[in-house]
């Protein structure tokens, strides 16, 4: 009944399913602990620098929609936005959030308002001034962000979310005005541009971890822990497989082929 050559894959898929769902359930009781994310550690320094220079911080989450395949990246970007807003509120730094998706506006407003309240600076928050819907078109949005960079000269620029061709335009423009930059995206083609230009980087899946860690959402945290178990299994299979191959035994290869 089972199709040969696909048995191990089926087993693996079922196992991953169990790990992911299991870890989500576990996370409801106790959230997993996360490793240090060096990109996030840079945030207090960035906010502090903006406070010293008395200049704003620019934040944006790229393109995509909350209903598409890149939605998880957008959600991660918003989670980090909450954290940045709280930090900035404490230091009295203005955060400018450039928005591409109109649907994100109400969520972002509430999120930033709460962050300012947590910092005890609810009056300092001005939604209209700080959350700017620029355009629903890629290049119009991109030019508008560049305009903000040129006019308001933010001390720091943070970009986390699904970025497309505009990644290079943004990072290059903010680099030119001397802003310190943190960027992260899980869109593989764009990571190199961020890596070239930005000071701090969240690479690929790191943004999901950052989002989950900061949001403390059990579904996301659990899901990441479930994936981690999968990575550990993959790691062990590779490691043992390499040793076995060196010892002349195809045992792991044959196992994977079943």
């Amino acid at each position, binding site marked *: 009944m089972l199709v040969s050559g696909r048995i191990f894959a089926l087993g693996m898929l079922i196992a991953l399913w169990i790990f992911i769902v299991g870890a989500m359930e576990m996370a409801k009781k106790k959230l997993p602990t996360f490793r*240090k994310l060096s990109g996030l550690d840079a945030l207090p320094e960035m906010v502090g620098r903006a406070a010293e220079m008395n200049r704003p911080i620019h934040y944006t989450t790229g393109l995509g929609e909350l209903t598409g395949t890149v939605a998880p990246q957008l959600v991660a970007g918003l989670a980090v936005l909450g954290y940045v807003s709280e930090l900035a509120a404490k230091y009295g730094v203005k955060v400018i959030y450039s928005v591409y998706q109109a649907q994100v506006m109400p969520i972002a407003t509430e999120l930033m308002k709460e962050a300012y309240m947590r910092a005890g600076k609810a009056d300092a928050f001005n939604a209209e001034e700080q959350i700017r819907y620029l355009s629903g078109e890629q290049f119009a949005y991109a030019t508008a962000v560049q305009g903000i960079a040129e006019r308001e000269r933010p001390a720091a620029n943070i970009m986390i979310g699904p970025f497309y061709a505009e990644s290079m335009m943004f990072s290059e423009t903010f680099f030119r005005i001397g802003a310190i930059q943190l960027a992260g995206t899980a869109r593989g083609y764009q990571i190199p541009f961020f890596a070239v230009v930005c000071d701090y980087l969240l690479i690929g*899946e790191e943004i999901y971890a950052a989002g989950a860690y900061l949001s403390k959402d059990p579904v996301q945290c659990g899901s990441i822990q479930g994936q981690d178990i999968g990575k550990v299994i993959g790691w062990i299979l590779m490691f043992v497989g*390499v040793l076995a191959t060196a010892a002349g035994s195809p045992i792991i290869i044959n196992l994977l082929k079943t």
Partner: protein
Amino acid sequence: MAVDLGSVIQIWIAALFTIWIYSIAFRDNVFFKFAEHTFVGVAAGHGIVYGVDNVLRYGWAPFLKGGVLYAVVFLLGLLLYTRYHKKYFWISRFPLAVMVGIGIGLSMRATVTAEFIAQIQSTAAMKLLGVDAWTAFSNLLFIIITLTVVYFFIFTFPGMHKGNLGIISKIARYGMMAAFGYSFANTVLSRFNMIFGRLDFLMSEWLPLPGGMVAMPVVLILLVYAMIPAQKRPWPKPKQPK
């Protein structure tokens, strides 16, 4: 080469759009905006054209041939558009669920093999012994980078990154940075090829046309004029906000 009138007009339109889009690299201007909005509009229209084409071909035609089930799909497809209704938007979730379900099923069943197991298998099969020293070294480095990068992306077991183990993530980052450098260079190649394509079009199709050589400087002068901030140019003046 004899060129018919239709092609001439086509080349002129395409050439103007090409130049106008490039102007954004220098400064924002009204010609760019015009070209950009044309792009957005035509792209959306293009989506409709092929959507209709496919719906007719793969849905309507079999329905007419007696595929009654296709009427259901048709209905589901139309229901997708309830997402724009404030009250009945939830109906669109049913067809969407069918569509997403198929997509997820197809991708999950193959991802586990193609991007997980096959990659592990290929790594595990790399030989360290019985090959020449250089190959052995390359393979070892390959295995080390793959293993460290996978390790790098393990987030929730912080013990795995404590103390001296931090070196693993460091190696992973070095490996990834090298890969990003390689990607960066390849992207330069891609983009320059695209620029070449457009410039080649301008120079070998547009400029040889009668009037092309005369028109080019005019187009460029107009562009530069449009780039001057509205306050500084004599005409048209921006409307004064009250």
